């Protein structure tokens, strides 16, 4: 039976930008492509668009399936669809693979027009601001002046924040979920260990592994295993795996024994099969550099004073990668800047990953907030209201 709350079968599209673009670092890309998906229908005055910004390993395939027999739906399918909190009956939803990504948008594995070979180590380092810049170019292409909402979790939430500061008039609502106003030394430390795992893998070849017909699998796998630990909570991990042994007894060796080892290795293997090592480096670096207060004397409230959007900030109690305190920093800055903001701290055992999970209060919150947004930009016809 088809799921009436699914967007169904979807197909990605590609937007080609054939002019050079200057990046925040000063580097120039001669041209680029963005791959994206859309769900729902853009209304007549193009006011009902929602942009979904993805996190470190995310992409444009946010909801629905590409083939009927796809094992998994898009990465936020529980949130987006007809009648779901991000309701595609009322909103036009856009998922985009960020520049530098490895799911179809121009990235390190793409062919450089200058050399005819993959960019590899020559692909420029990106900032969150560059993603926002290129997302805005895509919005222009689609005829969207102002987004009803820009929504993101984790690194995606940082993009929503950046949007609200850089393009205040283009964001009605910013939903910043499980995010942070900047990384702590601990966050950067984790990222650097992940990067070192990749960079010191002999198969990395300084980033130009494409020409050697190999990928730095070991490094990427370790990076993902490390990252994955930070996405889960101690409680959640304990609940799911505890000290469970695969064979029920100690083997006195270094093969997989504990279930948690097996799980992490599986996650690492799966990830290293499809994710590009250079993209991983880029994404973690963009995270490290993100600090919108930097150009405002370190005063986040001053940065947020630029915004015109209304904000919903959400955190999860067991998230220690971007703990509730980090969200409260954002909320405090918004309060000091006298902006409209609501903040919810959702009880969850799922750590940082909770933002991707289905959870009744969390989804009720998103549904309640976005129903108001829909009423503002795309009111239901009178008879449907009763």
């Amino acid at each position: 039976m088809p799921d009436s709350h699914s967007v169904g079968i979807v197909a990605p599209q590609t937007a080609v930008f054939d002019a050079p673009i200057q990046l925040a670092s000063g580097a120039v890309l001669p041209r680029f492509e963005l791959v994206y998906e859309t769900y729902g229908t853009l209304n007549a005055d193009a006011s009902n668009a929602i942009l979904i910004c993805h996190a470190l390993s995310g992409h444009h395939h946010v909801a629905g399936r590409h083939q009927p027999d796809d094992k998994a739906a898009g990465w936020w399918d529980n949130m987006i669809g007809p009648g779901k909190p991000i309701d595609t009956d009322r909103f036009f939803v856009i998922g985009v693979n960020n520049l530098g990504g490895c799911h179809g948008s121009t990235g390190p594995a793409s062919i450089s027009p200058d050399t005819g070979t993959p960019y590899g180590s020559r692909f420029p380092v990106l900032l969150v601001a560059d993603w926002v810049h290129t997302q805005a170019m895509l919005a222009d292409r689609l005829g969207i002046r102002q987004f009803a909402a820009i929504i993101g979790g984790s690194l995606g939430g940082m993009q929503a924040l950046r949007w609200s500061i850089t393009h205040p008039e283009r964001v009605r609502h910013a939903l910043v979920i499980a995010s942070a106003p900047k990384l702590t030394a601990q966050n950067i430390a984790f990222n650097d260990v992940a990067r070192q795992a990749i960079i010191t893998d002999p198969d990395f070849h300084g980033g130009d592994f494409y020409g050697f017909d190999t990928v730095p699998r070991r490094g990427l796998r370790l990076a993902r295993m490390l990252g994955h630990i930070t996405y889960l909570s101690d409680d959640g991990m304990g609940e799911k795996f505890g000290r469970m042994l695969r064979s029920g007894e100690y083997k006195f060796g270094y093969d997989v024994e504990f279930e948690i080892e097996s799980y992490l290795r599986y996650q690492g293997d799966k990830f290293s099969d499809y994710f590009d090592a250079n993209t991983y480096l880029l994404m973690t670096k963009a995270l490290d550099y993100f600090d919108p207060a930097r150009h405002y004397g370190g005063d986040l409230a001053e940065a947020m004073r630029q915004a015109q959007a209304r904000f919903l900030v959400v955190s999860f109690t067991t998230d220690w990668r971007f703990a509730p305190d980090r969200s409260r920093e954002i909320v405090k800055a918004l309060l000091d800047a006298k902006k409209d903001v609501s903040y919810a701290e959702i009880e969850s055992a799922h750590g940082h990953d909770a933002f991707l999970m289905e959870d009744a209060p969390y989804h009720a919150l998103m549904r309640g907030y976005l129903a108001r947004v829909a009423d503002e930009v795309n009111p239901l016809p009178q008879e449907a209201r009763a």
Partner: protein
Amino acid sequence: MSTAIKAPAAGAPELRPDLNQIGHWIARGARVLDLGCGDGALLSWLATHKDVRGYGVEIDVDGVVACISRGVNVIQSNLEAGLAQFEDDSFDYVVLSLTIQAMHNIEGILTEMARVGRTGIVTFPNFGYWENRWQILQGRMPVSETIPYEWYNTPNIHFCTVNDFDQLLIKLGMKNTGRVVLANGKRVDFLPNLLGNLALVRFERETRS
């Protein structure tokens, strides 16, 4: 924070009488902080009828969802932490409705209210109400409309009378700038400490720095 008094049936178009009175005290266009705002009924009413902008603070997630669903800004937090995040004089009014009797550090919360707002508004069940006195005379802890709990399951730990509250304001160096006492939703002007079961008090810092 859940209030100690049950709200009227859901969907009632009218505000609870105490909220209604608060609504009348608050000037058009003011900035309001509502501590323990519940489902956001007061702020929603104020936004519609008085162009008020503000925030609610609420710990209960169902309340937070209700606020957000009606377009009221709400910060999910306990009251102490909720207050601490605001700068001095951020608001024209800070409201604490039917919550104070369940709080631990009442002096602290009143001082904080007077710090972040120009005017504080507190509502509380009046323990001096004659029905409460009568039940105590009969040898029982009072249970009534405004105090609907038994002694063993009550969240309320700090009851006071209208007169007690005035004394506390004096002790804290604050000025009572208005008081209304209600009984069953109607205003009581004769012997309010005896005949009223619900008190609303407006206060300010005596000297503003």
